[in-house]
């Protein structure tokens, strides 16, 4: 069992989830409040990582943000090093890669809030921020759990981006999925099997907890 990879993967998933909840909340709220073209364009952009191969993202992170371009050189000057081969690089990659898994559940949650409630509050003089804070957020709170669990699990399962920009450095960029890949390549099936079973069990439990909570809510609502 590669414990360094396990610790690294959990750290990456936790940090990505935290960053994404902070970023995704205003983004989802903005998209939910508007029917305009801008909101649809944003929604489509946010959902892109769902359908694009991770290699597209890996390619851009490596080449466009690398020293071969002007933008990449400016970024490297700012950071002191390229994003590739660093934990920060993996966090940036993971945030983009898991963006739809955070934004889309939140968007669904915000959209399911009855507009009569928010409308009434607004008529009664509540500011948009108060409406969001006092009505939308509490009513959509389970979407935050869904967004967090899906983002976390999806980040743990990330492979292509990490393979392309990570450089397989133990303790820094060798995540569980890379560790399994290495073990399979080395024909070390027993080790690959142990790590894989752990991932399957962990992911299954996370999803089970999510769905069990949902169905118990539905039953108590009925």
């Amino acid at each position, binding site marked *: 069992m590669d414990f360094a990879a396990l610790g690294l993967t959990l750290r990456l998933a936790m940090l990505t989830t935290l960053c994404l909840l902070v970023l995704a909340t205003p983004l989802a709220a903005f998209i939910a409040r508007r029917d305009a073209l801008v909101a649809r364009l944003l929604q489509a952009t946010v959902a892109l990582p769902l359908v694009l191969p991770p290699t597209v993202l890996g390619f851009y992170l490596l080449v466009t943000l*690398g020293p071969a371009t002007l933008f990449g050189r400016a970024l490297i000057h700012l950071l002191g090093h*390229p994003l*590739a081969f660093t934990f920060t690089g993996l966090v940036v990659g993971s945030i983009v890669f898991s963006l739809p898994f955070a934004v889309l559940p939140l968007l669904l949650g915000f959209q399911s809030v009855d507009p009569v409630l928010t409308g009434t509050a607004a008529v009664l003089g509540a500011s948009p921020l108060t409406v969001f804070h006092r009505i939308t957020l509490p009513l959509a709170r389970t979407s935050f759990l869904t967004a967090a669990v899906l983002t976390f699990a999806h980040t743990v399962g990330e492979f292509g981006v990490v393979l*392309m920009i990570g*450089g*397989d450095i133990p303790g820094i960029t060798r995540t569980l999925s890379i560790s399994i890949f*290495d073990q399979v*390549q*080395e*024909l070390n099936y027993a080790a690959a099997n142990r790590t894989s079973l752990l991932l399957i069990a962990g992911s299954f439990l996370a999803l089970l907890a999510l769905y069990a909570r949902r169905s118990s809510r539905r039953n108590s609502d009925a």
Partner: protein
Amino acid sequence: MTPKVLHIAAAADLQPVMPTLTEAYERESGIKLIVSFGSSATLTQQITNGDPQDVFLSADMAHPQMLADAKLTDGTPVSYATGKLVLWARNDSPAQPLSIASLTNARVMRIAVANDAHAPYGLAATQVLTSLGILAKVKAKLVVGENIAQTSQLAESGNAQAGLISLTLANSAHFRSLGSFIPIPDTAYNPLHQGAVVLRSSSQKQLAHDFLRWLTSEPVQNGLHNLGLEPAK
């Protein structure tokens, strides 16, 4: 009638070499070669698990021998080329002007090497750093590619300031236009004898053996030098 087709699993160092070889072979024999690339370990792994290839061109002798030991081959591996390791860097890299001392240059923060458990050129790189006595010193700088083609890409994009890559890639027009390389002394690593083998699962073993005979024939062997390989020994 559709043209005859051979499926070749080729080590990643052959990526810039195979287009020339396939074109020449197709012209001479009328047989089309369809090539899949990967690290020698990945390809061995895939073939072991039923990847339907006719011929395996490895970057070492060990991986085809593993397949032979597992009775997955038709005959024993033959050496078809000798690979060379070089130190490559972009022209705008702080590793320039290149020398062996570039490896320990403080401004060279990242050195790309291939995974020494998957890729023969990665194993050679580890041997070089060990025989130079600088492995411990540069260990923290190493970034690892899954195969030699990906490794060279890490240096090509400039994310790594230098890379220990195959001469086949360093010698290609693209890499020549972007950077330069210096050879690594032969004495610093075990010779990269590259082995080829026909696979037992192939339904056209005769055609596959014909291709290997062509590949190891004198005219083809003499042309390898221009492609960044040396003849088999």
